[in-house]
């Protein structure tokens, strides 16, 4: 790996990305993240965007919304979810969520719960017929 020029730069950016992945629920100061990566803020943002396609701040927001989708899918209340993924204001959370996913958190949660219930009640609907038949998963109890 050392033969690749500037591999050390990649390692620092990846470390910063993983820091966001692991601390998205905290009050992350992206100035500190760039400092920890030993970059100027401008250089850090430029390299991060070059590698991941998002600015660090946009990546943080995207990560929070992705985590929120998982939490909402598990039935966590919207308000609690917004706090668990690092939003200070539920209004800001709802607005950002809708902007990114196209639906409100409560509508998203409703869709997920309907899907989950259907999956438990009639899992065969989610399995291609060929696999289900091969396994004998065609009995009424499934």
């Amino acid at each position, binding site marked *: *790996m050392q033969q*690749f020029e500037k*591999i050390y730069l*990649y*390692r620092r*950016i*990846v470390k910063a*990305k*993983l820091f966001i992945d692991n601390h998205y629920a905290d009050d992350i100061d992206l100035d500190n993240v760039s400092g920890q990566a030993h970059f100027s803020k401008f250089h850090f943002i430029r390299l991060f965007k070059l*590698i*991941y*396609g998002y600015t660090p701040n946009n990546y943080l927001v995207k990560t929070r919304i992705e985590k929120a989708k998982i939490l909402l899918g598990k039935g966590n209340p919207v308000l609690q979810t917004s706090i668990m993924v690092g939003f200070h204001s539920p209004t800001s959370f709802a607005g950002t969520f809708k902007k990114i996913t196209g639906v409100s958190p409560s509508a998203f949660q409703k869709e997920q719960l309907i899907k989950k219930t259907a*999956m*438990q009640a009639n*899992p065969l609907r*989610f*399995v*291609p017929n060929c*696999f289900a038949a*091969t*396994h*004998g*998963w065609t*009995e009424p*109890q*499934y």
Partner: protein
Amino acid sequence: MITKMTHTCVYVLNQESAYDFYVNKLGFNVHTDAPMGEGARWLTVTPPEQPELEITLFLVAEGGMFDKETVAAMTTLIKKGAFGAAVFTCNDLLATYEELVSKGVVFKKPPTKEFYGFEALFMDDSGNWFSLAQING
């Protein structure tokens, strides 16, 4: 005419461990996780930017398509690393490699410039290997 692929299978030796590998290490999304009775489970995941392609994490276990002899043979071959399951792509191979290594993913081959592109090979938790290639690499 055929229009698209909707499902494909990766044969795994432990679905719980495969779930952890594909979701928590590779970052894939769970599409379907449905109990099928008698301990059976239909588990599919999708790559983050390809939600329409379900990868079934198919347990190699007796029943359905597999008898005891088949299970033993497949288990041996999977553990041996005889199955190359697919090619995945990423925008930046070095960054993806560094991240996956930090999460404990084992690579058979580090990022390497080949005449056909920039690629690495990694193994899943069962022993299946995959090519990881950089788009425009």
